[in-house]
Every structure is written in C-alpha cells, then in structure tokens.
C-alpha cells in the first residue's frame, strides 16, 4: 500500500495556493473599461502613433492597431477624422474584450490540459483490457489513480463550460454571443449544434459516460483482487470494449465543442483525431513519469526496465502520430490555400509564430531524437526529461488551439496562465497520489499479471 507522504501533500497544496493566487490576480488585473485598456497600453510604452517604431518583438497591441486602422481605411465614404476616432474606440473595445477573455482562457486551457491527461489515461486503460495486453497489468493501479482526476477535473470543466456557455460570465465562445450570431450567417447555420444549452447537455452526456466507465472499471478491478476466478476481468473486458466505441465518438465531438468551436467558422475533419493523439501522448507520458517517480521512492518493485521501455515506445510512437495528424491538417489547408480554411493557420503563424512552431519542435523533433535509440528508452531520466518537454509542448498545443480565438493578439504566457497551470497541477498531484493510497499498487488475480511481472524484452 502506498501512503501519501506529507511532503508531497504540502507540495501539491502549495502549488494549488500559489496557482489560486495567480488565477485571482489574473481576474483582478483584467481591465474593466476601455479607459483602463488605454492606460495599460500607455504603461506598456505602446502609445498610439508610435507603433511604427515597434518591431514584432514588442507586444502586439501596435500590430492590432495597425490592422484595425487598415480596415478602417478600406471602408470608403466615411469622414476621415471621425473614422479614425471611431476605429480607435472600436479597437480599444476589441482589445478590452480580448484582455477580459484572457484569464478565462488561461483557466480553461490549464483545466482542459490536465483533464485530457486523465481522459487519455482512461482510454489507454480501456485499450489494455480490450486488447488483453500482457505487459501492462503491473501499471494498472497507476493508471487507475490518474483517471481518478477525471472526477474533479470533469466537474470543474463542466462548471467552466456552464459559466461560459449558459451563464454568459465571459465571452470566450464567440458563437455564444447573440449579437455576433445575429450578424453572422455561418453561425446562424450552426446554431442548432453550437448553442450553450446543447453544448452543456452534450458535455453532461460525455462526462457522464466517461465517469460511469471509470467508476465500474475501477470497481471491477478492486473486486477482482478478492476473487480467484476471471469473472471481473471478463466484465472489465466487456465494458472496456463498449467504452472505447463510446469514447471515440464522444471524444471527437468533445473536441469540436470544447476546442474547435473557438474558431467557429473554421473546421477540420481530423480535429478529433488530432486532439486524441495529443491526449494519448500526454497520458502515456504521465503514466511513465509517475511510475518512475514511484519506483524511485521504492514502490512498484515489480515494474522493470522493459515496462518503461514500452511506455517510451508509446511516447515515441504517439508523438509521431500526433505530428502526422498535425502535418496532415496543416499541409492540405496550406496547399489548397482556400481563404476560409487557411485563415486558421494564417492567424497562428502571424500572431503565434513562436508557440505554434515551437510546440512542433517540442512535440516532434525533441522526442524523435531523444527516444529513437532503443537503449535510451530504458534510461529513466531520459524518459522524464523528454516527458516534461512533451507535456509542456502539448500544453502549448492546447494554448494555440484556444488563445487565437479568444484573446487574439493580446496573448502572453504570464501570471494568469502560469497560475492556472500551477493550480491544476497541484490539484492533479493531490488527487492522483491520494487515489494511489486507496488500493494495493499491484492488481491481484488479473489473468495477465504474472506475465506482466515477468515481462522482459
């Protein structure tokens, strides 16, 4: 049995407290009027008229202003001076909304990121049962513990969606703004699917299904410990197979609702797969890191190099799979160059160049080079190092999925983002390691557990 060390608990709580302070300060420092935005921009040394002298390295307000100015010049017929004034007000209004969206988006991204680790882990766990995998049963308890985060993570996710979708506490979902939809034919056409109530109902169905599977899968696994036959394993096998079918449909729809709808005009048919691939990499990486951590503390003595090697192979493989999907999505749209499609990548390349390409390097080049060699996959610190880079890379992946649609040019990775990340990291650690204490770290009576313990490559 694992007992939660008080140091680790303190570590998690400290992160949660620091994170909560960051989140709150993010909300408090968001401007509430255009006058404040003006002040903030002046404080940034980005006054109007001076934007020409600012390079791309400076903050992006100047660029945004240029854009809106260009837009206003493109509209003929209006008085020049009035037009300029109107566009400035409009621009300030626009920036205000972006800045108000920022703490919400930061919270949303971090919340989703840790939620998807738990969800990916649940899918991975189900695959082990459905495939009757022989190598992995020694890791089941670690996986079960990670999926425990699905409960609080899912509830927070649902609350966030309710606050954005139904309670209108923020404007991160542009399709949820009645005024915008009134002037937008495309959004009117999609309103049957993309509306707050429908999204919340779907979210309830998705989360309900996933949590239901999680509840029974873990229950069967615990029940199996006290039995001598394969009754519970057979039941687990059945519900796992069923869950995987449910999961791949709902995960896909979840990705449209929760991520793709930030750019509601744009769509990609492989988006669900793309999100899934990122989810799996993060989940497997987290399994590997937690397993290595527990091993370093003297637990999980039955986990050997070959298990770590296999997790490393999965990290390597899914990183390449993720890149394959990223590239497939990118290349077809880039090649065809159809305006309504390519705008998604134009926004990202123009305004998010460093995170957009940086995360491809972190999620592809880094793991490929570090994990290519067979022997390196058995070196624990290699796996941990690569894992940390992969996790950071996939956080940025979610970041560039969400931020362009919500805060646009006003993005930055600062206190709200890092605060939210710290908070959910702390919560994740706390929940996962508390869940680890609930059952013995080795499953008993699983028909493959002996094979798994003797597993060698």
């Amino acid at each position, binding site marked *: 049995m694992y007992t939660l060390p008080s140091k680790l608990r303190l570590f998690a709580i400290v992160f949660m407290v620091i994170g909560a302070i960051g989140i709150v300060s993010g909300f408090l420092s968001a401007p509430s009027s255009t006058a404040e935005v003006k002040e903030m921009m002046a404080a940034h040394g980005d006054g109007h008229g001076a934007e020409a002298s600012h390079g791309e390295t400076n903050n992006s307000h100047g660029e945004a202003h240029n854009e809106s100015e260009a837009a206003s010049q493109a509209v003929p017929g209006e008085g020049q001076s009035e037009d300029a004034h109107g566009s400035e007000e409009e621009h300030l209004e626009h920036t205000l909304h972006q800045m108000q969206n920022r703490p919400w988006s930061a919270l949303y991204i971090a919340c989703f990121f840790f939620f998807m680790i738990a969800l990916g882990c649940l899918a991975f766990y189900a695959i082990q049962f459905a495939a009757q995998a022989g190598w992995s049963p020694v890791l089941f308890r670690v996986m079960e513990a990670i999926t425990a985060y699905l409960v609080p993570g899912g509830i927070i996710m649902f609350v966030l969606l309710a606050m954005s979708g139904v309670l209108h506490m923020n404007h991160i979902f542009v399709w949820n703004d009645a005024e915008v939809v009134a002037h937008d034919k495309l959004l009117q056409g999609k309103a049957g699917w993309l509306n707050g109530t429908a999204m919340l109902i779907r979210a309830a169905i998705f989360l309900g299904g996933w949590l239901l599977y999680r509840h029974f899968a873990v229950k069967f696994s615990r029940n199996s410990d006290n039995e001598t036959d394969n009754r519970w394993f057979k039941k687990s096998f059945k519900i796992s197979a069923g869950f995987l079918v449910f999961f791949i449909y709902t995960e896909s729809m979840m990705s449209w609702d929760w991520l793709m709808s930030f750019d509601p005009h744009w769509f990609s048919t492989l988006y669900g797969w793309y999100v899934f691939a990122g989810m799996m990499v993060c989940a497997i990486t987290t399994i590997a890191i937690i397993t290595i951590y527990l091993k370093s503390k003297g637990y999980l003595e039955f986990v050997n190099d070959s298990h770590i090697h296999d997790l490393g192979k999965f990290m390597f493989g899914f990183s390449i799979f993720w890149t394959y999907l990223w590239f497939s999505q990118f*290349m077809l749209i880039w090649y065809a160059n159809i305006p309504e499609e390519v705008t998604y990548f134009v926004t990202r390349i123009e305004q998010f160049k460093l995170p957009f390409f940086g995360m491809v390097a972190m999620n592809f080049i880094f793991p490929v080079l570090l994990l290519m060699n067979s022997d390196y996959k058995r070196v624990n610190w290699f796996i941990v190092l690569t894992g940390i880079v992969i996790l950071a890379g996939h956080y940025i992946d979610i970041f560039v999925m969400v931020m362009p649609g919500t805060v646009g040019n006003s993005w930055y990775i600062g206190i709200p983002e890092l605060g939210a990340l710290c908070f959910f990291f702390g919560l994740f650690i706390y929940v996962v390691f508390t869940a680890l204490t609930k059952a013995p770290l080795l499953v008993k009576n699983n028909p493959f557990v002996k094979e798994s313990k003797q597993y060698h490559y």
Partner: protein
Amino acid sequence: MASKVIHAIYNDDDILMQAVKEVRAEKYHIEEVYTPFPVHGLDKVMGLEPTRIAITSFMYGLVGLAVAITMMNFIMIEDWPQDIGGKPSFSYIENMPAFVPIMFELTVFFAAHLMVITFYMRSKLWPFKKAENPDVRTTDDHFLMAVDTGHHDAEEVANFLRGTGAIEISLIDKDEDH
C-alpha cells in the same frame, strides 16, 4: 588433430535456451545455433554482440532525406521553377510542406531497402547460394547447436550435451565439413 565439431539436435526452444546457458557456463565454444524460427533472447544467451543494423538504417535514412531534398530542389525550384499551391515563391523552404511527403517516403525507402541489402551482404546471402545449415530438419522443427570441441575431449563434450537434453549427437570432422 583438427578440432572436431559436435552437432547436438534439440526439439524444443526452451530446452535449447537452457542448454545454451549450460554450455556457455562450462566454457565450451558454441560455433553456431540453427533454428527454424527466431528464438527470442537467444542472441543474448549466446553472448552475441548487439546488431549495428539500426545505425546503418539511420544513416541510410539520412542519405534518403538528402537525396529527396536535392532532387526536389533541382526539379521543382531550380531546373523548372514551379508555382506550388498558388504561391509562386520559388524558394525551397517556403514550399517545404509540399515536399515533406517525398522527403519522408524517400527516407523510408532508402532506409528499408539499403538495410535489407546490408543485411543480406552481412549474412552472406545472395541468390542461388547453397544453404549452410548442416541438417535440413533445422528448417522444420529441430534446433541444432554446433559446439567446437577445441582441446576438450569430444566424448566428454558429447556426454555433457546429451545431459542438456539433446536428442541426437553427431561428431563431425571440421575438415570434411568444409
């Protein structure tokens, strides 16, 4: 007297693995083991050096990548500049996404084919080559371990091998073998 080779035949891979371990523990020299299928872990037990084919594969992949880049740059950019995807930039790097599939495919193509050819050459395999395995049953369901008697007494080694579970032992003079 020329050294002699003992051919010990086994009919089970687990027994063979155990036998290999015992033979090596006795410091007898195993020349070769012939098996009808790849036996997992046999190379480690025999103390063979790990394969270096992965390194060659990586290098061949790099060659393929270089060939693809050079070729596409010549064909699409230099020799007959193409307007790719409505973006006539005539620069390799700006059109790179369009070339990635080719770069990938040629990397794989070179790595795979040259690796196979390397493997054949290294294993001294070529068309119409006469089979080397001393007993045809090793292509069916039997395993053969060839042990060099060296300066040991042949009878003693044969007895030892029989003890490890060999179902058949035959003493072969090295000279007549080759």
